[in-house]
């Protein structure tokens, strides 16, 4: 018995060391403190939420620390988590790719949603023998996610892709099992172009898909698509390049198959300037007048309380984010905000007290 205990302890200790080493590199929260030398200001703003906007925020952190002497601490915990955190006032600002739902807005007790970056959701697929940039339309994607199209050599897909040889592989839709801004964009778009999708499933951060399999977070969907022959899914635009995924070109209202890019997202943003009463600006399925617009574009929002004990710091940071901060965008795949949105944002920001 004594010997057993000792060996158990040894093995356990060895395991702990390995684990501790493995955990050292993890973590989604970064804290940027001002470099030593100059006296550091104690001003800190904390935020949490969207992973989509995180690459941009992580550029703002060091830049803003140098320029304004304010430390930004942002946890990329996901849009849903960001909404929960700001609702509980556990952070100074939240970030979400989907606008607040009616219940969420009520729970948040007077939160503003300020569009502060542009992004897109991209339809991805993995079918052995099928090249990148397959052509698809919204109604066909809707049929695949409704279970109406079950094999990749369906005549409806063939008709859009003359010259591409499509196998009879079974279609496996893969969707987000957690609440997600990408699900919201994807299901809003399909609801806009397919009446059947709208009535059977509808637009939501958690659409009740009835076929296919779910996976958690963008990374889970990416992994699931990569390991499933015949998969079709959707991820935030940055995951396409990062994980080497195929992208489908979705036909926009003008009838063009558009590559998701800084330019095509910007074209969608330029075509839509009317904000809803709650401050959100829905970008999916822009009108045909925007010939080069990508149809699954979206704004991502900063969610901030109307009254905050750190109002002045918050206002300064948000103003920086929508003006100077935008310069980092294009390199990371974020188009600059249209000037009309910047000016309406400034009005919103001014109302924080």
């Amino acid at each position, binding site marked *: 018995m004594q*010997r057993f205990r000792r060996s158990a302890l040894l093995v356990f200790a060895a395991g702990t060391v390995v684990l501790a080493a493995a955990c050292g590199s993890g973590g989604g929260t970064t804290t940027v403190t001002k470099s030593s030398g100059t006296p550091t200001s104690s001003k800190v703003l904390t935020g949490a939420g969207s992973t989509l906007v995180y690459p941009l925020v992580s550029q703002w952190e060091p830049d803003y620390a140098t320029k304004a002497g304010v430390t930004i601490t942002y946890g990329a915990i996901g849009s849903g988590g960001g909404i929960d955190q700001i609702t509980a006032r556990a952070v100074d600002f939240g970030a979400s790719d989907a606008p607040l*739902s009616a*219940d969420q807005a009520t*729970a948040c007790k007077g939160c503003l949603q300020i569009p502060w970056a542009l992004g897109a959701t991209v339809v991805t697929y993995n079918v052995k023998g099928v090249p990148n940039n397959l052509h698809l339309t919204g109604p066909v994607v809707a049929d695949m996610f409704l279970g109406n199209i079950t094999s990749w050599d369906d005549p409806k897909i063939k008709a859009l892709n003359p010259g591409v040889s499509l196998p009879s592989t079974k279609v496996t839709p893969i969707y987000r*099992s957690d*609440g997600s801004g990408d699900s919201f964009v994807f299901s809003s778009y399909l609801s806009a172009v397919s009446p059947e999708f709208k009535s059977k499933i509808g637009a*939501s951060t*958690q659409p*009740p898909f009835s076929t296919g399999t*779910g996976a958690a977070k963008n990374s889970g969907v990416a992994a699931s698509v990569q390991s499933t022959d015949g998969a079709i899914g959707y991820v935030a635009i940055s995951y396409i390049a990062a994980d080497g995924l195929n992208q489908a070109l979705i036909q926009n209202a003008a009838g063009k198959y558009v590559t998701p890019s800084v330019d095509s997202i910007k074209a969608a943003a330029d075509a839509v300037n009317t904000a809803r009463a709650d401050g959100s600006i829905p970008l999916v399925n822009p009108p045909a007048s925007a010939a080069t617009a990508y149809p699954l574009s979206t704004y991502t929002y900063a969610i901030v309380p109307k009254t905050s004990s750190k109002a002045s710091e918050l206002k300064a940071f948000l103003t920086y984010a929508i003006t100077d901060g935008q310069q980092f965008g294009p390199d990371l795949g974020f188009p600059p905000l249209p000037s009309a949105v910047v000016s309406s944002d400034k009005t919103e920001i001014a109302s924080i007290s």
Partner: protein
Amino acid sequence: MSTRAETDFALPKRARLHFGDLALRGITGAAALTVLIVLIWIAYKVTQQAWDAISTFGLGFLTSSQWNAVTNQFGARDLIWGTAVTSFFALLFAVPISIAIGLFLSELAPRRLRGPVGALVELLAAIPSVVLGLWGILVMGPFLEQHVEPFLNDHFGWIPLFSGTPSNVGLLPACLVLTIMIVPIVSSICRELFDSVPSDLKAGSLALGSTRWEMMRSVAIPQVSGGIVAAVILGLARAMGEAIAVSQTIGGTARTGWSLFGSADTLASRIANQYQGAATALQTSSIAYLATILLVLSLAANLTAALIVRRIRRRMGATR
């Protein structure tokens, strides 16, 4: 309990009134009380959160298959089904393995091997569930999809369990991950149980000409059968409550069906996936309702295990 301790040690009166002892009793008592308070407080809070959903859906929640954030209709039937199926198959796989490990370590293994092998089995319990889940997605899922499930489908496809298309996520990977998680718990309890069988009984059986297997079957296992049941129930509670590794491997689709290849979802996995960022207040409340159901099931399992153990203690006490 306390009266027995006092008579056992027969403490002098002055010692009992000693300040240090009083303080010790206070501190340890407070610790014990804290656990009770925390348990009641959690149960109260979860039920309070769930109250909206409980009053909206009532007990119909248990039999409704809806989970729709758009129409604001929620029900737990498919999730209860998923929890039941994954727990059942995880136990079906884990219990024979665990009993075999227990017997091996207690009766058959060379003395030199017992320590290291036992430690390794227990180390399995030290793997964080998120790591097991990751391994489930990246390694086990594709292996099952490419090799195991096609084989089962080709040869036993007429059994509903093995019908359907092989998939890298679904019930089978989730069941196997759970199996790996509960084997260490159940096997270490089994080993202790077999070690506790009086050696004169074992020796007597062997002296009467039994083989080792006959001795185990007719003496060791019957002696501790109640304990094994309790161990199995503890394993069950673990399987029901596991969220992360299951959510990574099960596919997250609420669904009832017999095929082990299809995806499904469990109570715990749904809570882990959706408690953040619920779209409506009723959904938040419905997730708390799921938590209430899970809490009740887990408490029931643990209480059953405790009752069985107590009954065995009493019976064993009576035979001595």
